């Protein structure tokens, strides 16, 4: 599935930077292919927000210090504010807008966030949810965290208790202080 979009120049001709500072770049975003003529300075976050009107990924700090911009690139959670989009040519990007299924169906984490009231202002929420999606995959793939016990065997899935969830989501700040509810929401998805 997916479709083809030639999004063309992201800037109008008069203001575009010279050719040596632009590159045609193809990204697959939420299963849609986009080819854009990108200013090398443009980071993935601004491609999403400014060029494609996908404003689910938020700009909280623009410097990799808050996690609000978290998306999945080739299935891994990353801070989209620090990724030069030109360097991602050919990559698969999933944003919060791409998590839900068809129609009304929410991703289990989205549902759990609603059930647990795991947000207030909502600005960190897409990043928290994408980060949790990535963190669950990492634990399943055997990635340890700072709080994983030394006796935990390497290369095996790591069970996620609340301390593990807290540590693994610590790259996502929430100033409203929804942390306890977010941990519950992630637990709900870990333990059905």
């Amino acid at each position, binding site marked *: 599935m997916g479709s083809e979009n030639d999004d063309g120049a*992201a*800037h109008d001709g*008069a*203001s*575009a*930077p010279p050719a040596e500072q632009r590159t045609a770049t193809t990204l697959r975003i939420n299963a849609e292919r986009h080819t854009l003529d990108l*200013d090398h*300075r*443009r980071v993935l976050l*601004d491609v999403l*927000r400014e060029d494609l*009107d*996908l*404003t*689910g*990924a*938020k*700009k*909280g*700090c*623009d*410097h990799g*210090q*808050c996690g*609000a911009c978290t998306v999945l690139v080739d299935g891994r959670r990353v801070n989209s504010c620090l990724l030069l989009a030109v360097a991602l040519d050919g990559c698969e990007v999933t*944003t*919060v*807008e791409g*998590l839900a299924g068809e129609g009304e169906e*929410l991703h289990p984490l*989205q549902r759990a*966030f*609603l*059930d647990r*009231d795991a*947000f*207030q*202002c*909502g*600005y*960190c929420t*897409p990043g928290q*949810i994408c980060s949790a999606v990535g963190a669950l995959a990492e634990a399943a793939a055997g990635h340890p965290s700072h709080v994983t016990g030394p006796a935990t065997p390497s290369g095996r899935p790591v069970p996620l208790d*609340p301390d593990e969830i*807290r*540590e693994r*989501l*610590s790259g*996502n*700040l*929430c*100033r*409203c*202080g*929804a*942390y*306890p*509810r*977010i*941990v519950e929401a992630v637990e709900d998805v870990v333990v059905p």
Partner: protein
Amino acid sequence: MAGTGTAPGATHSALGASAERREGRLKVTGGARYAAEHPRPGRAQAWPVPATVARGRVTAVDATAALRMPGVLAVLTHENAPRLAEPDDRTLLVLQDASVPHRGWFVALVVAETLETARAAAAAVRVDYAVAEHDVTLTTDHPDAYEPETVNGDFPGRREIGGPDGTPAAVHVDVGYEVTPLHNHPMEPHASTAHWDQDRLTVYSSSQGSTTVRDTLATMFETSAEHITVVSDHVGGGFGSKGTPRPDVVLAVMAARATGRPVTVSLPRRHLPAVVGHRAPTLHRVRLGAARDGRLVSLAHEVTTYTSHVREFVEQAAVSARVMYAAPHHFTTHHVVRLDVPSPSWMRAPGEAPGMYALESAMDELACELGMDPVELRAVNDPEREPDSGKPFSSRHLVDCLREGARRFNWSGRDPRPGVRAEGPLLIGTGVAAATYPVLVSPSTAEAEARPDGTFVVRVNATDIGTGARTVLAQVAADALGVTLERVRTEVGCTTLPAAPLAGGSSGTSSWGWAVHEACARLAERLADHGGSPPVDGLTARADTEGRADAESAYARHAFGAHFAEVAVDTVTGEVRVRRLLGVYAAGRILNARTARSQFVGGMTMGLGMALTETSTMDPAFGDFAESDLASYHVPVHADVPDIEAHWIDETDPHLNPMGSKGVGEIGIVGTAAAIGNAAHHATGVRFRELPLTPDKVLRGLGD
């Protein structure tokens, strides 16, 4: 415990229910749009240029290099920016003259086609300054300190009851505390998108109250408020820093006028500390004198803080002592110094948060001196009437909160001796502190409409900054109309709706809810006149609570609470981590258990940050905050926060508003820092009197 009366309107189940947030689905799917996320064709991006001197004047701005960059539309400076009429808040008078009152003050604004170009061009603007001497260092003996007439909230700066030569005290505490500057840092940086269409202005602004934004813009741009629409649909937190307009919205409107384009100004995170307000540092001296039985014979709380040269804002940190405890001699005062610092402003529970840290820490010290349980000390000093005004409390229930918290926290088994609970290198301790926050309420208007299809629409320019205003106002409406919640829709967050006050001072829900309740009650009456169903074109009722919501009350109205904390202090590293945190509140009727709990817990989390992680250092040489980003200013992360518990007692208070509610947004932060600090003392036997309790201070206190 909590009265026996029944609050008006308490007959329907919609009020108090744990209703799910109405905008929740939009927020978890990324569909909720914030102020910078409203693109229009031709929308340009702007980037401010902050001053790089602590005090002085701009002598020249050279924008040549910036203007040569392809895609740069304009560079606004004090020389070419649109002229503004003076607003009440002078921090909004940007690009109007050459003066630089503090480092970080905006001296230019670049408008460009893209964010990248705007940022690069802002870096290329060359600004020359005539530099003047500056002073940014706060001390208690600063020669320019003065005692202000009033402090924030219009409270008197100084109050004294009784004389110092009354009953002699058996036990004295005379201690000093320090709270560093603190930053609100909502997750959404301050942002505005503005667009002029002839003389009509549309603005999307990240604000806690768009009615005030509209009115301020009308003043500053000398246009009619009717020509301005301000939308604050979804707001990514504010915590006081978006309570009134900030420079972003003024700059966006100026830039849109100057360029004829829609313009977004989204402030870079590093710019925020200097231009959106912060909690000023406070230096406290608290003197308590008590009889052997614990009763206070004297209470003195003296606060020294700073403000800027742009405007006077005095953190009212001694005011909460006037509410908390009575004493034959009761003395509270503030001193403030005008320094060349960024302008301080509101941050969650201004006054109460730092003030109650100091007072409740001192009460703990007094309890230790007396050899008395700190819960009991507070109980014996619980006053009948508000000490300062002499008014009866509309409801208080602080002692109930303390007792309920003690029960839930298992306080009764506590060994009071400090420094005796070790788990290997960890020292464990528990602490308690009380909390208070005033019940504030402002007049509001609202409109309720009955539609022929049996649904209802409530309109009020409330702002949902994360409190769940849409949801709770629907509950208030459903309750007043006597209908199910599903039949009520709420429209908030736009100045085309009936005017309403800000989401701030824990007053939003009470203020808006009062007007919504009245409009709905009126609508219900009119519906009854129509035989229960509206005519084909619907039926509408309006309300305006002016004169009632702002009427002077015969009662002292405050929310109260009790906080309990358990901490572990690592004697190897000096790291302090909270293991348990519990709050019990007396906050009137809780209108939505789910969203109220989230606000309590959120406040406590911010209090945890104030206690342990958040610090900001004014750089004496450069005049700015050294911790200007989120890597260095340590907002608590997931790993810092245990499973925080928030509870409340059922409180029925007929002297508040038709819903019987007090505010819940701020009281959670008040007292949390003191409870954690008191727990750290209980753990270590060392009294730390400067926040936050970071390893450098704790190791020093532990004597390495």
